[in-house]
Each structure stands twice: as C-alpha cells, then as structure tokens.
C-alpha cells in the first residue's frame, strides 16, 4: 500500500524524506560494507531486491473478492535484517514508482518510512521476540509478516491523517477514516501474507537450508558424529 504521487503536501513530503534519510543512509552503508567484505553478496542482495519487487506481482486471494499483493518486506526483514531492507525497499519503491506508476517520487520518503523502515523493524522485532520466547519458528514468521504488513498500514494511515486532518474530528477522525478504508483490503492481506510466509518458509527450510543458515535465519546444523 503506497501513497500516490503528489498526494502529500510539499512540507509533509520533505519532512518524511528527512525522517527516512538516516535509515536509508545507514542501510546503504551496511550494503557497501557487506559488498566490500564479501563481493559475492552484492549479487545476492540484488537477488533479494528483485525477489521483493517480483513478490509484489503475486496475487493473493482477499475476502472482499478482489485480490491484493504481498509487500514482501516482512520476509525480507527476517531473511536480510531491517537495515538492509531500508535500502532495498528504497530501490524497490523507486522501481515501483518509475516502472509500475505505483507510489511516487515525491512520496518516496513517506513510503520508504512506512514500508521500508516501520514495517521491517516491527516484523523483525516480532520474529526475534517469538524466537526468544522459544515459540515455534513458524509462529515467528507468521507474526513477522502479518505485523510488518499491519505496521505499514497503520503508519500510512497516520501519514495521511497528519496530512489531511478531518475538518470536524481532526487527526483522530482522519486516521479512523483511512484505517477504516484500508482495513477492507489490508487486514485480510496481513493474515494472507502471514500464512503465505509460513508456507514459503517451510518449503525454504526443506530446499534452501544452506542459504538460510548462511543468512543466520536458521542455526547451522550440527554435523552428525559417527
């Protein structure tokens, strides 16, 4: 869920760029450091970005009868950690704006904050918390993806509420309106993306365990000693 091009007033657009920039710069520094220390990881990071972009092309069934698409940032945060996702989400959102006309250039800062910063950090926090509480990894993955989606939805509603306070009921009324409108698609989508994430993760654990261990998502398997 992105804020469309030109939708935010100029002052808000600039402010959200200012808020997002430190996170993007930090993520970019992490990416540069990683690619200098391990040059081969550059291509794997690119694969992660392409995967996140393509994931937004996969249609999920929605209870409203229509279909929605996953954001992919929750899964990305679990696999690649939130700072890297801030940078990768910036690239993905830039591509979505310029290749799909989804989102925009003036609203890039706001969209990066909701989808590339708030969503991944909340999702990753849920995943880490679930692992510390020794919950099943599938529960952690479900919470990470569903909560990343919900956080993106709530932050986007807050951004729109701040930009367009209701003339009668102010910020609270405006947020309630946007939360209500987006709830039709976003609440089922969050649940669907959580379930999708668990299914994807189960298959990945079976067929791509070495990659997940390398990313430190799963603990390395101990070699059997004869």
């Amino acid at each position, binding site marked *: 869920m992105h804020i469309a091009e030109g939708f935010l007033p100029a002052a808000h657009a600039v402010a959200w760029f200012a808020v997002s920039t430190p996170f993007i710069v930090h993520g970019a520094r992490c990416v540069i450091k990683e690619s200098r220390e391990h040059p081969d990881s550059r291509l794997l990071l690119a694969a992660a970005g392409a995967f996140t972009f393509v994931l937004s092309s996969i249609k999920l069934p929605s209870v409203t009868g229509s279909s929605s698409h996953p954001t992919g940032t929750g899964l990305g945060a679990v696999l690649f950690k939130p700072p890297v996702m801030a940078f990768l989400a910036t690239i993905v959102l830039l591509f979505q704006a310029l290749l799909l006309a989804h989102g925009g250039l003036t609203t890039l800062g706001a969209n990066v904050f909701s989808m590339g910063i708030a969503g991944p950090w909340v999702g990753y926090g849920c995943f880490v918390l679930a692992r510390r509480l020794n919950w099943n990894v599938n529960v952690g993955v479900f919470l990470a993806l569903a909560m990343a989606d919900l956080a993106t939805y709530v932050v986007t509603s807050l951004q729109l509420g701040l930009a367009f306070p209701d003339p009668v009921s102010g910020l609270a009324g405006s947020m309630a309106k946007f939360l209500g409108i987006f709830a039709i698609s976003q609440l089922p989508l969050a649940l669907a993306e959580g379930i999708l994430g668990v*299914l994807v993760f189960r298959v990945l654990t079976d067929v791509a365990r070495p990659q997940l261990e390398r990313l430190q998502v799963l603990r390395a398997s101990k070699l059997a000693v004869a």
Partner: protein
Amino acid sequence: MAAHGMTLDVAAWASPWRTRSVRDKAVLAGGLLVAAVALPAWPGGLLAGLASLVLLVGPAGLGWRRLGRISWLPLVSILIGVATVAVSVSWDGGVRLAVTPSGLTTAGGLAGRALAAVLAMFLLAATTPMADLLAGLRALRVPDPLIEIAALVYRLTFGLLESLGSIHEAQAARLGYATRRAAMSSAAMASTAIFLRSWDRASRLEAGLAGRGYEDSLRTISPPKRRSTAFLVASLALIGAIGTAAAVWAVVAP
C-alpha cells in the same frame, strides 16, 4: 501488474526523447513535479499538469492509448484517497459521515495536485529507461556498489517476472487457483520458486562474472546522449512561466 510495468518501460525505451540527456529531462520533469506539488492546485498545479500532458502526448510521443494504460493504477489510488478526504467523520451522538464544503475544497485541490504530479512523473518515467537513470546517478557520484545492486535488481527483475508468468500459467492450467485454499498454496509455491530462482541466477551470474574478472563495477557502453542548451532554457522558461502565473493569480485573485 507485470504487463502494466512493461508498458511504462517499453514506452521509455521507444521514446523519441530516449537520446536526450537525462539531465535535460530530469530538469523538465523535476521542475514540473515541484511546481505541481508546491504551487496551489489552481492555477499552478493545473498549468503544470496541462504542460506535462501536452508534452507527453506531443513531442515525447507517448500516445493517448499508452497513457491510458499506465494511468489507471495511480488514478484508482488517487480516487480512493480523494473520496476519503472529501467525507468528514464525527462521533458526537454516534458515528456520522458528512460532506462538508471545506472537505470538498481540500479534496478538489488534492485531486488536481496529484493528477498533475503523476503526469509530471510520467514525463521522466516514460522517456528515460532505468538503465539511463542509473547511469545518471553514477554521474552524481552515488557509490558504485549501490548503483550495481540497483542495476542488478533491474536486470534480474525481468527474467523473474517472466518466470512468474510461466509458473502462474502452469498452476492455473492445473486448477491451482480454482479455490481460495489452492490459490494460497499456489502463491506460496510460486513465491518459493521465485526466491530459489533469484538466488540461483544471482549465484550463476556471480560465478560467470568472477570468471571474467568482475571486481568493482559493471560498466556498459550506452548510446551517446544529446545535451541541448535550448531544451534546458525552454524547460526553465516553462517552469518559470507557470510559477509567475501562479504568483500573479495569488495577487490578482480576490
């Protein structure tokens, strides 16, 4: 969504402005975008939108049909947002929805500003392929590793979108989307397959490039770009005229 994305990318590669320098196009589109967002919707935003529209279907050669195909998604987003802003909500004595004059004024201005901004953004997106934009970022001294990753994302995306289309077609032919449960399972399998393919392609690409001495950056030769002082001056004059018209209107209008 993939086909929709191809429309904008195909338009950029086929644009008569493809050989113009990125600097020239960025100044024009960026200036109109700033005018659309920063100036009042009437008349500044409207003028910026009209100028973008005329340039898109005129010299930039986008055409009405292609413009329609790339416009539906932002139009739907704008419509939903504008309708939400137009309606007022209050909860004194129960939840009440109403349409107020101030809500309608805000919604009208918002619709005009967003439409103008979308058209201005199209002026860059529909005339400049991503490869050229990334080369432009390199000229602005954005670090090489970041440009490389963005360029690789762009290159990998098209192969993966094609794979996704084939997977979806095969799954649909096997009734993979006949029920909600089957659709969820098919979407999960498709996501996993795409993750593994993206990983595998990146690994094979890395091995192939390492064998060719890839260490720092993947430089490619791009066709020479035309820098035009006349184009730049005309762009700045157009943006200045729109700004002046908006300022005069603010003084003259009651």
